[in-house]
């Protein structure tokens, strides 16, 4: 069998280092020894493939998962998933989770004294279309305090999980909102060395996807790793 087409290596400055002491939990949870570079084999260029089975329309509309509407600012989050060569990543699973508008998660470990919203779970999933586009309808999450340092607050964010086409392209990240003063103070956001890469995680207000009289639009594109060269197709 012929060798595989590997995925492109990323500039390390575009990714957080595992150890970032200002984010305290990294200290006892990040490797101290150097990673071993793994040349890609069939094991890394393959990965789970999801189909439409089990995904319904309300999975991408977090405002319609309960009897009533959730409280908060209704928003549309729309974007495109492409690889680092600009090629769309179609039919790939995008999963999100987030706090409610008061900054509270429906989770037993979240002890923040802010109200739960019986009409909001904060979980969504969808597949990208043939051009790599996705869209969610949700409400803007609130900021919330955490115990990392004195008076620490997480900026409002939506967690994103994507598989892409291979084990090598797996990505879990967070989307932030534009012009948020908490970003400069957030060690999780600041753990990314390169400013340009950090800005990749800040969504843009988007009048084109804003629906008149109904919801504000935000654009959030995701760039996954792509193959080093076009695969040979025999």
């Amino acid at each position: 069998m012929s060798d595989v087409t590997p995925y492109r290596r990323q500039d390390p400055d575009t990714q957080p280092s595992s150890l970032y002491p200002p984010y305290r939990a990294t200290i006892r949870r990040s490797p101290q020894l150097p990673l071993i570079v793994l040349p890609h084999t069939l094991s890394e260029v393959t990965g789970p493939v999801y189909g439409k089975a089990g995904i319904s329309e309300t999975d991408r509309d977090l405002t319609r998962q309960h009897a009533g509407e959730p409280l908060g600012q209704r928003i549309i989050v729309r974007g495109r998933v492409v690889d680092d060569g600009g090629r769309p990543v179609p039919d790939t699973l995008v999963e999100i989770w987030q706090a409610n508008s008061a900054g509270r998660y429906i989770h037993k470990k979240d002890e923040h004294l802010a109200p739960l919203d019986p009409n909001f779970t904060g979980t969504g999933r969808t597949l990208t279309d043939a051009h790599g586009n996705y869209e969610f309808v949700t409400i803007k999450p609130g900021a919330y305090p955490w115990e990392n340092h004195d008076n620490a607050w997480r900026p409002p964010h939506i967690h994103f999980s994507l598989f892409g086409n291979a084990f090598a392209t797996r990505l879990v990240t967070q989307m932030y909102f534009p012009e948020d003063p908490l970003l400069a103070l957030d060690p999780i956001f600041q753990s990314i060395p390169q400013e340009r890469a950090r800005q990749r995680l800040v969504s843009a207000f988007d009048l084109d996807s804003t629906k008149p009289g109904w919801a504000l639009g935000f654009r959030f594109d995701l760039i996954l790793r792509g193959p080093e060269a076009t695969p040979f197709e025999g």
Partner: protein
Amino acid sequence: MRDSTDLTPTPAQTAGPYFHLGCTTTRSVACIAGPEARGERIRLICRVLDGDGAAIDDAMIEIWQADSEGRYNHPADSRAKGRDPACNGFGRLATDAAGTCVFSTIKPGRAPGNNDTLQAPHFNVSVFARGVLKRLATRIYFANDPANNMDPILALVPEERRSTLMAFSDPHRPGDWHFDVRLCGKDETVFFDV
């Protein structure tokens, strides 16, 4: 707004403590290969520990594996058409209070490596957790499998660290294999730059 031709890759961020909501509350996958799957039936018991050796009860483990003949359920595997349909190949679970999660599967076969080599049976593993800023990738091999000696990836790992990539069979429960992920410190697991 950003230039649409800017292809700076999207950085990773931690999955945080609440990933269950998006990934495992209704979307966990404990069964990687169904009961009809061909091959040696096993339970893979994973445990995640921090630098103090304490169990991590808020980690997520994902497994990606080949079927009993080393074929992956993916179009990039040219042999995928003949693969075992009962082996989906993917699993993911959150760890419990003891830092543990248990997958039901079969022992994978030998997938091809590069340059006409064969890889030893292995699982491809991703670890996510609060305090883990980007996915940690590792592999799980089977201790004492004779194929390990010829595995091209294990050969890249210093000999004294290879044991950190081994699952060990349970002497009291045939078919149970145990694997510890030690995120840092003593006997730190080998992690790969994938």
